[in-house]
């Protein structure tokens, strides 16, 4: 399990279960594929701070979410200075800035104010949307597991 350091949130933010602790700093929460790829990381949610809200959602500072394919290649990286993450619905939203980049660096999206639905990889950005498609890309980085 890859931990970026500091205090890890015990319990999976990515699951529907409520974590036993209300907040954490410098956390990272990995999620793995089902067998036979159980050793392959599916996603890694990391942040500088997470605070459990009254409604069961998390307020996350310095969010960084990475997803990986079954072959270990990094799929996308999502970054935002602040967002609210609903672990039950696997939905993140924020009025802050958002950056998304594919693992090969070929495609990136930026904007302000977003709704990210991880289940179906759906993203809505409400302001200042900017997409860049680069003709040359670097090879997708493998996961850390």
């Amino acid at each position, binding site marked *: 399990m890859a931990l970026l350091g500091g205090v890890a949130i015990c319990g999976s933010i990515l699951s529907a279960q409520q974590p036993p602790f209300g907040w954490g700093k410098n956390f990272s929460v990995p999620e793995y594929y089902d067998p036979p790829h159980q050793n392959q990381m599916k996603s890694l949610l990391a942040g500088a701070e997470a605070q459990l809200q009254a409604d069961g959602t998390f307020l996350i500072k310095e969010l960084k979410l990475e997803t990986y394919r079954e072959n270990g290649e990094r799929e*996308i990286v999502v970054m935002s200075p602040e967002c609210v993450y609903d672990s039950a619905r696997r939905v993140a939203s924020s009025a802050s800035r958002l950056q*998304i980049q594919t693992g090969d660096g*070929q*495609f990136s*999206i930026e*904007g302000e104010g977003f709704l990210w639905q991880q289940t*179906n*990889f*759906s*993203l*809505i*950005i*409400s*302001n*200042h*949307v*900017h*997409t*860049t*498609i*680069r*003709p*040359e*890309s670097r090879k997708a980085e493998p996961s850390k597991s």
Partner: protein
Amino acid sequence: MNRPFLTVLLASCLVSVLNAQTNAPAAADRNIDISSKEGEFDLKAKVAVYRGNVRVEGQGMQLACEALTAKLPATGSRVESFVAEEKVVFDLVDEKGQKVHGTGDRLVYTYTVTETTTNEVVELMGNPILETSQGPMTGDVMRLDRINNKLNITNPHLLFREASASNTNQIRSPNVEPGQQSPPP
């Protein structure tokens, strides 16, 4: 105006469109940049919908519109297709710097590559106007084959600019030959 004359005129306009304007292509044309007010992305299907003050630059194109739906590249680095709608204004520039300017209500761009062929087609419809050195042209549908530098216009018309009292260019649309069909591509 008889059909042979119109055909010659269209051919002349096409040559003018494709050859007369030789603005140098932007050096940083390698990236494709799309900006807008709002956007919706299906990152699995790689489909993006942009709304509000949409701007596209790159891939030999500058385009402005109010709504754009794009099929983003699954592999490779080119946008495979997009549909631009509402107040479409575009400039196409090929590798030699030849420029085409046009406007319309709807523009459909498709880029396909097979083992044997590459197709890059721009279709303009909804009051389409294409600027040429002979003046603006219009028709029902304008189809520009960028690979083969061929233009096909369904029901082509010429538009005449008339200087008004305020000395501004206004477009009136007398049909040169209503019902005319451009030659097949």
